[in-house]
């Protein structure tokens, strides 16, 4: 386990918590500064969500590049980083996707210690239900593909599933009878804000400047390269740029003069009132179109599929809410008595093959991290690491090589169209 990489920041520990208790919690200091941006940096990352902050952290830690600015249009982690259902798993079908998502899961496993920040990663296991023998065959195919590539996953019989998740509807004649399942035991959930804040604190400690409420309104492009970005603080120059702005990617690309193969849609989620612990795993049913886990506060965190129309509304439609809730109640009949506390939506940037776009943009010193669609949270550690590698070296890391923008012209797509309800 690597030691924490938090630069100049004071270490959080039980002893320090005790000592601060004795002196009235007066010595903590802010987790990150809010400096006025300078006129010029080595590197600028646009987007202060998980991926952008993770990229800043990896630029500083892996590549020694600390003259870095992160600019965020609103507040840190306020976009899709703060709007997802926090599920982390790597049960994908294609080898290239498995490599990326499992590398991310492994980074998550050490992240609390590495950042000296408790991201509350709970590896409670993720169960994907099958409702017929044909669906069981489909899961068997995915489990085999994962095991062949050395990633832990296994099948569960109907009895094993009902034993692990006793609240599931056990009837054989209901609309979605449980036929069996696939489980990835290393999968789980984490505290989403803590992921963004932990990276921000660590990057700041190593000298990265983070500026919020700072929208990019234009690019200065000279001789085919970006030389600066227009912001409320004026023009800020840099040698290399990265963008990790999810649903705002098409607009930002338009400002830079190119287009991306993305379609932005709304993905919604909701939570129930809190209950005592009653659901130990993440339980998903792709055919039924919903997934549930229980938060540490006791709320049932519920997600479903995309709303299939282009949208920047950032709020979910009631028709979809009703559909998702109906699916959940079909899986867990006892949840029909729960009240929903909150429902919200985020704008996700879906790509044609449901796989992310990582690599150079049509402008050589502007690098892309987008197209994660509904599945970006689980990929924050690796997405940032790969963007940092691109920005620091100008070349792909072997893991990001297959995910370049050029794959749409060469036809080497990485089809993950069936990677879960909404691949979370």
């Amino acid at each position: 386990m690597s030691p924490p990489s938090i630069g100049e920041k004071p270490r959080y520990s039980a002893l320090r918590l005790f000592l601060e208790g004795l002196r009235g919690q007066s010595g903590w200091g802010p987790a990150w500064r809010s400096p006025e941006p300078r006129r010029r940096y080595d590197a600028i990352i646009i987007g202060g969500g998980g991926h952008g902050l993770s990229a800043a952290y990896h630029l500083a830690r892996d590549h020694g590049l600390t003259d870095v600015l992160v600019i965020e249009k609103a507040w840190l982690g306020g976009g899709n980083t703060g709007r997802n259902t926090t599920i982390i798993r790597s049960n994908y079908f294609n080898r290239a996707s498995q490599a990326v998502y499992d590398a991310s899961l492994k980074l998550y496993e050490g992240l609390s210690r590495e950042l000296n920040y408790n991201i509350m990663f709970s590896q409670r296991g993720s169960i994907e239900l099958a409702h017929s023998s044909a669906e069981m065959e489909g899961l068997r195919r995915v489990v085999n593909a994962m095991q062949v590539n050395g990633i832990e996953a296994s099948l569960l019989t109907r009895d094993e599933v009902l034993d692990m998740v006793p609240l599931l509807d056990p009837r054989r004649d209901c609309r979605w009878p449980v036929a069996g399942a696939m489980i990835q035991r290393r999968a789980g959930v984490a505290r989403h804000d803590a992921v963004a804040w932990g990276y921000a604190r660590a990057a700041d400690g190593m000298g990265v400047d983070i500026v919020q409420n700072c929208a990019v309104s234009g690019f200065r492009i000279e001789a085919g390269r970006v030389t600066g970005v227009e912001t409320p603080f004026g023009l800020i120059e840099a040698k290399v740029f990265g963008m990790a702005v999810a649903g705002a990617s098409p607009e930002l690309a338009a400002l830079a003069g190119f287009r991306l193969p993305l379609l932005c849609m709304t993905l919604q989620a909701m939570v129930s009132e809190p209950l005592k612990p009653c659901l130990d795993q993440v339980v998903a049913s792709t055919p039924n179109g919903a997934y549930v886990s229980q938060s540490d506060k006791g709320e049932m965190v519920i997600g479903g599929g995309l709303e299939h129309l282009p949208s920047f509304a950032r709020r979910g439609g009631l028709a979809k809410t009703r559909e998702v809730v109906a699916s959940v109640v079909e899986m867990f009949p006892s949840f029909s008595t729960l009240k929903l506390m909150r429902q919200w939506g985020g704008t996700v940037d879906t790509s044609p093959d449901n796989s992310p776009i990582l690599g150079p943009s049509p402008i050589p010193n502007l690098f892309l991290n987008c197209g994660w669609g509904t599945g970006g949270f689980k990929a924050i550690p690796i997405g940032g690491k790969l963007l940092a590698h691109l920005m620091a070296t100008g070349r792909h890391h072997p893991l990001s090589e297959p995910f370049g923008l050029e794959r749409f012209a060469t036809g080497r797509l990485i089809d993950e169209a069936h990677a879960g309800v909404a691949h979370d």
Partner: protein
Amino acid sequence: MTDAGPTPAPTPAPGPFPCPFCGPRDEAEFRYGGDPDVARPGPGSSDEDWARYLYVRENRRGLAREYWVHAQGCGLWLIAERDSVTHLIHSVREATP
């Protein structure tokens, strides 16, 4: 990380979808059908042109032109002008001339 600022203030809920043939119908009967302004490249076009045709969409924030189909109704293909932020429909007409 996606858009600017706080969640937008509530706007009037979009009403029923106005089908030119059936009249106002529930939006659940309709399906989004893609971008009507994508031109198919001719023979001999480059791979990049084909990729643009297949995968790049207007994806506009605000007023957008879109194909819709009354999938669970009369089956008519439509061209709608719809706001992708408020979801309000500004105009709908039959897609065929």
